[in-house]
């Protein structure tokens, strides 16, 4: 389960509206307690896929190193990521799964239709390694 405040939830939805028709992306930081991931901080990121931003995203690892360091200073871990699908369902794609490597973390996807965020879903990356990984539906609880 992903616990997130309404304010943070709306923030990640709005990010997708702001970058439409391109995909937005960002990092979720907070705490993990068993199967519950609680968001304490949202870090917006740039999308380095300037070659194909309408259907691809990539977060610069250098940006992630900084976000991770700043999170450590606040006592937070990276617990997930979010991105948007412009005019496309809020469902993970084969590309999303192929490029997912943060097991135990949440992958949040927002469908942004004609510039408006219409649906957000979350998925947990499960499995033991690259051979058996799966993205499974995850409940979002708004606090």
């Amino acid at each position: 389960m992903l616990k997130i405040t309404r304010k943070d939830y709306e923030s990640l939805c709005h990010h997708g509206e702001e970058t439409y028709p391109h995909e937005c992306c960002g990092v979720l930081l907070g705490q993990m307690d068993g199967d519950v991931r609680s968001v304490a901080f949202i870090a917006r990121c740039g999308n380095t896929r300037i070659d194909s931003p309408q259907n691809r995203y990539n977060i610069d690892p250098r940006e992630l190193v900084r976000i991770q360091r700043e999170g450590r200073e606040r006592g937070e871990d990276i617990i997930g990521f979010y991105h948007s699908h412009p005019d496309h369902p809020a469902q993970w794609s084969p590309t999303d799964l192929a490029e997912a490597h943060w097991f135990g973390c949440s992958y949040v996807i927002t469908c942004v239709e004609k510039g408006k965020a219409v649906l957000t879903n979350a998925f947990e990356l499960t499995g033991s390694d690259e051979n058996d990984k799966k993205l499974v539906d995850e409940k979002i609880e708004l606090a």
Partner: protein
Amino acid sequence: MTKIHIPTPLRQYAGKQAAVEVKAVTVAEALSGLVSQHPDLRRHLYSEDGKLRAFVNVYLNDEDVRYLQKEATAVGDGDNISIVPSIAGGR
């Protein structure tokens, strides 16, 4: 000692630690020390041919070692190595 920061998905293979300290003079030696202490990490970091997996980024402080001397990059006391799996995707 060099500190290696372990990303959340790999901590279960590193004794649940967020960071591991190793004595090393290069990035290669540091990572070798890490997998010696925690052998279960090896298959998550390296493919069967012994190379770092393409989606595993290794940063020395704020620099990607690919743009330094790769795994031959020198490390010293107080240095921080971050293991950062890629984050990407799209519809």
